[in-house]
């Protein structure tokens, strides 16, 4: 299978907006789709660079996202700031094991795993590894699929802040960690968007001639 030829090798580019395949004229400058007018590239522009940059930003913000409180809840019983981890611990201790697991997986594990896997994929392309491109493609698809669940936490937080507003009695406010956390999620999404999985095949193709 790794001897299937890529479109690029045949001078064909794909418009990523309308999936129209083109022949590419010679010369410099931007090329746009003949059908929908979107700018098309052989591969996503600076895919590795952008992906790596967003990923680095996400990795940096992953630390404050988990260290800082994401939600400040005030009630008659006093004010309490919760980080994601403390929320997980609290849920676990109060017997909501399932919720704790969901929160842990969606909010801590998934972004972390995503950062690591993307880093691995980028590194693999950058280093022109030939290791198991199918597995890498699977990993990429998995990463892209799973990333949408990371936003659950932010949504829950946003809904809480919007709905639970009984001044004096209960008050829920976003804390700085929420911003960092949302940034992590958005940045990992951007990173995985910027990553062009075709690069995986390009490198293996190049290796095989």
């Amino acid at each position: 299978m790794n001897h299937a030829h890529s479109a690029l090798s045949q001078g064909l580019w794909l418009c990523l907006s309308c999936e129209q395949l083109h022949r590419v004229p010679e010369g410099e400058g931007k090329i746009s789709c003949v059908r929908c007018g979107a700018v098309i590239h052989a591969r996503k522009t600076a895919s590795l660079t952008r992906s790596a940059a967003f990923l680095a930003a996400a990795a940096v913000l992953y630390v404050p996202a988990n260290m800082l409180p994401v939600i400040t809840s005030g009630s008659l019983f006093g004010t309490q700031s919760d980080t994601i981890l403390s929320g997980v611990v609290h849920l676990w201790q109060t017997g909501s094991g399932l919720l704790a697991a969901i929160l842990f997986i969606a909010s801590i594990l998934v972004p972390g795993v995503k950062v690591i896997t993307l880093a691995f994929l980028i590194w693999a392309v950058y280093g022109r590894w030939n290791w198991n491109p199918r597995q890498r493609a699977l990993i990429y698809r998995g990463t892209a699929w799973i990333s949408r669940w990371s936003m659950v936490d932010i949504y829950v937080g946003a809904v809480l802040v919007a709905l639970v507003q009984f001044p004096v009695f209960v008050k829920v406010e976003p804390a700085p960690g929420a911003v960092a956390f949302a940034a992590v999620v958005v940045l990992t999404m951007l990173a995985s968007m910027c990553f062009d999985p075709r690069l995986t095949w390009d490198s293996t193709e190049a290796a095989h001639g």
Partner: protein
Amino acid sequence: MVEENASRPDLPEAVAKRGGPRSPQLVWIVPIVALALGGWLAIQHFLNRGPNIEITFKSAEGIEAGKTRIRNKAVDIGVVKSVRLSEDGKSVIVDAEIDRKTAPRFLVEDTRFWVVRPRIAGGQVSGLSTLLAGSYIGVEPGTSKQKKTEFAGLEVPPVIVGDSPGKVFMVRGDDLGSLDINTPIYFRGLVAGKVVSTDASGTGEEVRVGVFIDAPYDRFVNTDTRFWNASGAEVSIDASGAKVQVQSLLTILLGGISFENPPDAPEMAPAPAKTEFVLYDNRTEAMQVHETIVERVMVKFARSVRGLKAGSAVDFRGITVGMVKRIDLEFDPQAVKFLTVVEMDLYPDRLRSRKRNAQRTAPEPKPIERLQRFVDRGMRAQLRTANLLTGQLYVALEFFPNAAKAKLDVAQTPPEFPALAGEPRELGDSVSAIAANLEKVPFDKIAQDLRDSLAALKGSLKRADALMGQISTDVAPQLASTLEQAKKTLGSAEQALSSDSPVGGDLRGALDEVRRAAESVRMLTDYLERHPESLIRGKRGESK
């Protein structure tokens, strides 16, 4: 592969646009910004991390690591990080982190820490918010400059927090009663402060109560100020009758201390803080005992002092000049008789000249000498009945110029004040005299006579009863027949006298005859009156 490209003519050729590609390097701004942001957050976090302190408490009740706050004036200035037992296991050590900015002001030697829990004391509920929100650690910064990071926490919250204007005074009393920390202090009914400390004095003979008087009331406290326990109701029965005094309904429930200056006290400078005062039992006592000169004397009475008690008044012409302090019994082995010894405090100052210091010429004699002079003039102590109903007694001082010579016996301690031998009869005595007289009445004999009389009366009544019986059986029927006959007689009489009876008609005719006869007689007498001679000559004229 190019030929393959050519072999796909069906595919459209893309449109070429002018313009170079953007530099991809710009995207690295994103991680740089993220790094800067993350770095700033981290730096801020580490910068804001305040110093850690250790506070030792007896118990960590209500303190939770990571949750319990340290607060001053309801502002969080720190949070408890961990709670652990001390090495000897006798106390708990609370590790806490203090806010960096406030730390220098709070971490000094005399800073006080205490756990705020809900408390109900002195009519005030405090720390109610902790009921729901959990306890917190209160802190009151000290004034020292000496740095410190290990503190011993207070077990009882300090009552005076902050730099409240006012002064602390010490009040000594016999008994704490219902006083407690936070018990209000009243000045003429105004809440003027509160109790801040209660403890026993060094010897354990009295209690010392620290009272904090708020400004501006603290300026009313001078060295002559009286403090008294305003707890509850004060019921006193004395020579002037029964009296109930209540400060306020609240003090009945919660107790309280009142203070006031004696009404006629001169203006004095406010007392300095920590001045000690006596805590009197009640207002009367507090206001009464403002005698600075007190002379203890004793009086020996040969009679019962029932009705006299410690606190009874010593009276001179209606003015209280002293107070009975103690009553004892003394046995005189030689004479084999008992004497009641009444010790009393006299206030000689009340028996002095009204002239004030400035006008006084001669030096003031000593109080005891003054009393001596009074005794020489015939002053004697006498027991008198104050209240006939309750049998209260009081000691009266009075001048008896004709009394036997006596001296104030200063050889004894306390000096013996002479009592007047002849003492008036009291109500009890009179009552017993009456009782004795009553005893002489031969109640038993009277009762016997009464019983005899009653027996005789009973016999008479019996006889009367028999007589009545006879009357009803014998006399009554006869009486009935008699009455029947009488009725008949009356009936016939009525018949005879009725108008249409023959007897009636006859009678009327007879009476007519009589009337006519009477008329003739009158005519005759008239004629004879006019012509008396006719008696002799006979009628004239008619015969002619």
